[in-house]
Structure formats: C-alpha cells, structure tokens
C-alpha cells in the first residue's frame, strides 16, 4: 500500500531535481557588461573547437605575459560536439569562461540564453566583416565576436588541368565540362569531391548553390524559410547531376582527407575553405603546392557565384565565472596588431577588415582569391533551427543525388520540415 506514494515522490523529486540541476538563479540575461582597462585576473577557462587551440597558443603566451595575475587554460573540443558540450555545461552549471565555435552555432546558444551580450569596449563592431558581424546579432545586440573568417574556394589539380588543356571553370556548365575532361586523369572515377549524406556538411554546399541559382534560404528579415522555390529546385537538380553524371564520388568525402586525396590524385578538384592552404603547404611544402594546386572563386550559376562564409567566433557563456577575464582576452585577440599576427601565425583571414591591408596579407595570392570571393558570399541562416534543418537538406539532397526522389519533391520535403521547425527563436 505504501509503495505507490513512495514511488510517486521518488519520481517527482528525481525529475524536478534533475531538471533543476545547474539552473541559473533567474534565467534572465542582463544587458552588456562593461569592462575596464585594468589587467585581467584569475583563471580563464577556454574551450576551442576543431584544433584551434594551436592557433590560440601564441596569443595566450602574450596575454599571460601582459596580465601576470591571469592564467588561461585551453581545451579543444571536436567541432561537431561543441554545441552539445556547451549546452550540457550550461545546464550543469559548469560552463567555461569563453568558447570558440562556428558562427552557425551562435544562434542556438542565444536562444538558450547561454551566451552573454558582448561587453562594451571589447571590439568596435564596425571593424568586423559586416556579413559575419550581423550573424552574431539578435535584436541589435551582438553575442559573439568573429576572430577569423573562412570562405570556400574551388581548388583543383593545376597539373591535371594543364595536361587536359583546361582552364579553371567559371560557370556551372564549365565545371561539368571540366570534370568530364578530368575523368581520365583522375585516379578515381569521379574527379570532384562533393559532400553527400547526413554526416557531411551538405548544407554548406547547397546554400551557395541556392544563392548561385538566385534564391535564398530565408526571407529578407530571417523570419521564414523559403526553400520550396524554383531556385532551390534548380540548385538541387545541379547538385544531383554532379553525382548522377559521375562527376562526384558517391562516398563523398568518405570521412577522408581531401588534401591527401588531392595530392595523391584520387580526386582532381574540391571545394574547401582557405584553411586548406597552410595545411597543404605543411604536408608537401609551398613549392609543390604552387606547381600542383590552384584555387579560384567558385563557379557561377545563373545568378552569380556566392560561396559559403563561416567564421570562428568567440562567445562568453552567461554563467561564466570569469567573464571579465574572458572579454579582456577577446579584446586582446581583436586588436589590429593581434589580427595581423594571426595571419602571420596561421595564414587565416582575420575578421577585422583593416588587418587585410597588412602588406604580407596583401601579397598572399591565396588570400587575394579569398578576398575576391568575399565580395559574393552567403552565410548560414542566423536562426537556431538551422543546424537541424541542414540535416534534412542533407538527407533530401542525398535522395536527389542517388536518384530516389526528384529535386522538386526534395525541395517540398525540406520546406515542410522548415515549416515544422520554424526559426527556433
């Protein structure tokens, strides 16, 4: 007789206790704090994503030297796990003081009230590349600080192309012809490396195709997805044709190594971010890269050639214990000198556009191409539901690429999911 009430209590208490673990006092976020010019103090816990701890290391040394009473502890987290880890830490009340993550993940944390507005005095937002700065904002308040930006280029084996008498493709049709001619020289049957499947970044590939076809994923004020459109159908048809006509391998990147695959000739061309340049050079040396690899702006569709733009973005969790130190660390990373040094250390393209006038960066042919591409870019829709919708786009795109559905049906299915998800705010 006593068991039922006891069980009920256990159920309720356990559920409530678990749900309440690590809950913030009021769940409210105040406006931006202000930081002063005094040195940072205390321990600053930093989580970076995708191997960026190496990029950060030299700057930490300088920061600790300039702020002797502060110490920085950096932990690198796999890129795809970052949002889950940060939200889990927020729920558990163990959030770090500072996180570096992809620009597309920031809206998810804003919706969870998990990140603070950027403190006043950290950075002059007008100095940041406008496209990425806007994506960090919600209702006029910025929640993230882009550190460096990354746009996709079209890279190919220059020696293969020379052998086949080809120049870089500038349009969709030229790309198909380019690929057709390279089917023989490429060791693998399919010359192009294009992402396919739910575990690959297909959304980042389809978004630019949509832009190249003249469409956009959302309406002008980012309140509704607009994906069941003729432009989306055209983008999906083109994407599908890359696989159905044998231009791209059915196993996509196969979790593999595009750099290595390109260098051994398994593939002849791929779309990749500017991060690839130092990586390739580190593997084979600048001379071989110079002779074998070329990168150009992405081929244009009927409405232009926008490419995908991302940014490594700093954010300070709402419950950060040392938010003052965290914002001061960001400030130290966003000075003109630090942004120029970032280029020197990593050859990444700094988010502060004034740093692009730095003479060594001006003379860098790879980044000259990247800066030209930045004239025409698309970013991930700055809404929390994007990451989940991107998976649906990947699933439906794969169906088109394998010929199990039509582009029109895929676009319709994507829009149905988009309507179901809403923006996520």
């Amino acid at each position, binding site marked *: 007789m006593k068991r039922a009430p006891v069980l009920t209590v256990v159920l309720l208490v356990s559920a409530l*206790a*678990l749900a309440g673990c690590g809950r913030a006092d009021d*769940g409210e976020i105040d406006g931006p704090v202000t930081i002063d010019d005094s040195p940072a103090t205390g321990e600053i816990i930093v989580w970076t994503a995708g191997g960026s701890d190496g990029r950060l290391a030299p700057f930490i040394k300088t920061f600790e030297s300039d702020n002797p009473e502060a110490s920085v502890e950096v932990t690198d987290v796999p890129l795809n796990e970052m949002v889950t880890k940060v939200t889990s830490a927020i*729920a558990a009340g163990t959030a770090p003081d500072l996180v570096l993550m992809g620009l597309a993940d920031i809206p998810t944390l804003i919706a969870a009230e998990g990140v603070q507005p950027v403190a006043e005095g950290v950075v002059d937002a007008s100095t940041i590349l406008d496209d990425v700065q806007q994506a960090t904002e919600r209702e006029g308040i910025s929640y993230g600080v882009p550190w460096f930006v990354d746009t996709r280029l079209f890279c190919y084996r220059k020696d293969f192309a020379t052998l086949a008498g080809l120049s870089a493709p500038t349009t969709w049709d030229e790309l198909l012809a380019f690929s057709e001619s390279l089917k023989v020289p490429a060791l693998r049957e399919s010359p192009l490396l294009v992402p396919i499947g739910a575990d690959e970044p297909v959304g980042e590939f389809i978004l630019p195709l949509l832009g190249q076809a003249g469409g956009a994923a959302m309406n002008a004020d980012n309140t509704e997805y607009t994906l069941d459109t003729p432009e989306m159908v055209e983008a999906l048809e083109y994407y599908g044709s890359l696989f159905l006509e044998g231009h791209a391998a059915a196993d996509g990147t196969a979790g593999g190594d595009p750099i290595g695959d390109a260098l051994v000739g398994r593939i002849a061309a791929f779309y990749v971010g500017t991060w690839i340049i130092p990586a390739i050079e580190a593997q084979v040396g600048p001379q071989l890269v110079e002779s074998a690899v070329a990168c150009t702006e992405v081929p244009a569709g009927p409405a232009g050639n926008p490419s995908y733009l991302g940014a490594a973005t700093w954010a300070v969790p709402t419950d950060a214990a040392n938010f003052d130190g965290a914002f001061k660390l960001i400030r130290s990373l966003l000075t003109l000198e630090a942004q120029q040094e970032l280029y020197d250390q990593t050859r990444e393209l700094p988010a502060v556009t004034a740093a692009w006038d730095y003479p060594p960066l001006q003379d860098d042919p790879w980044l000259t191409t990247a800066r030209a591409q930045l004239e025409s870019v698309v970013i991930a829709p700055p809404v929390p539901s994007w990451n989940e919708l991107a998976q649906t786009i990947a699933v439906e795109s794969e169906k088109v690429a*394998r010929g199990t559905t039509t582009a029109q049906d895929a676009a319709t299915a994507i829009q149905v999911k988009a309507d179901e998800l809403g923006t996520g705010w």
Partner: protein
Amino acid sequence: MQRQGLVAWALALPFLAIFAVFMILPLVGSLAMSFTDMSSRDVRTPFAVNLVGFDQYAALFADERFVQSLLNTAYFVGVGIPITIVVGLALALAVDAGIARLRAVFRIGFFAPVVTSIVAVAIVWRFMLQSDGIVNSMLAVVGIDGPQWLTDPAWAMPSIIIMTVWRNAGLIMIICLAGLQAIPPELQEAASVDGAGPWTRLRRITLPLLRPTILLGAVLLTVGYLQMFEEPFVMTGGGPLGATTSVSLFIYEQFGFGDYASGAAAAYVLVVATAAIAAVWFRMLRSRVES
C-alpha cells in the same frame, strides 16, 4: 531485529545514494523529460517546459527517420545475432576439438577483436570497404567487380554486420568454450560407443547441453546490438539514405539538435524494446534450464 535492520540500511546507504544519483535519477529524469517539450533553449529555465503527455512518442512514430532507424536496428539484430552465434559456436567447436596444438593462440586471436577499440576497428574497416579499398582491389584481382560496400543502400548494413560479426564472434566463442568444457566427456564417449558419429553427437548431445550458454550469449548480444552506435557512426554516418541509422544514432542526433525531449522519448522506446526482447530470452533460458 529492528536495530539490525537499521544497521543494514545504514550500511547500504552509501551504495543506495550512489545508485539513486547515478542510476535512478537520470533514468527518471529522462523519462520525465520525454513527456515534455524540452529543448536546448530550456537548459537554463528547465521548469518553463510544457507537459505534452505522449505527444513526443506520437511524433516519433510519425517521423520517417525514426521508423527507418527502428527497422534498421531490427535488421541488424535479427540478422547479426544468429550469424554471430553460428560463427562463434563454430569457432568454439573448432578450437575445442580440432585445433588442439595451437588452442591458446587461436583463442587469443579470435578474441582479440572483442577487446580492440571499436572506433579504431571501424575506421580500418571503413578504409578497407571504400569503393577503391583493399577489399574491392583484391576482388578485382580475381575478376570480381566488388560492390559499393558503404555507399550502396543495399550493401551498407550487410557490411556493418560483417564487421560486427568479425568483432563479436570471439565473445561467443569464449562463452561457448566454457560451456563445451562443462559437458561431461563421458556422455560423448558413451554416444561414440553406441555408434553416434560426430554430427549426431553435435546435434543430440553438444547443442542441447549448450543451449543455456547460447541463450546467455544471445542475451548479451541482444543488449549490445540493440544499442549499436559506433559502427554506423564511424563507418557510414548512418547513410547512405539512412540505411544504417540505428535508434541510438537517431537519439544522438536528436540531442545534438537540442531536441532533448524527442531524444529521451526515443531512448525509452529502445529501453522498452530491449527489456521486452531480453525478457523473452530470459524466459527461454529459464525454461530450458528448468527442463
């Protein structure tokens, strides 16, 4: 008696506390979560969620991807377990009877995959099964045009099953070896004297006496196979066309998207399925042991 009882409870208290915090609380908490609409946006305000009853469960079964993940998991379990048991049993019989001299070497060799990192193993298999990987290269040498193991929806799950059988057959082999060694040799000798050949002895003596052991192996495999995650996560990412997305992988994705309530509901569907199948196995095990 009453004092003894209190002392017993006091002694058990540390364990009970740990059990409650690390076992009961997450279980009950996630069950409670499955009846709400909790998502990542609620992590700082968990009491602001709405109770939605069984809506999450209804939505799950209306979700094509979840239904496909259920079917995929059923396929993996239904095909993978019998093959693993047959291969493991065959290995055990061979090691027990046929390979006397190097028994220890074979025993270790066949068991080694069980204790090898699943992630490392899956990555190696993925490279082996790539369209231009070593498996297709070897098939090409003998004139066979190998399939697209991991990118053809018809071949992706069989590929994962092959890898899983390779990895887990050693476990069944060890369990069956222990069972074989418990069979009194007098029974085999008596049957031989009566004229029973090896096949008859296997069917009439060895297999009936090994039934409890095999059922135990089946229970262990069922629990493990129903939760398959690393294999598709590493080898196929759940593709192609969702052909290898398991329920566990689906749950992982839901949590990754911040759909906590949906993930929790899917987890409880898996719990119920696991409990139901395990109950059937245990019932069979008990009835066989009793008989």
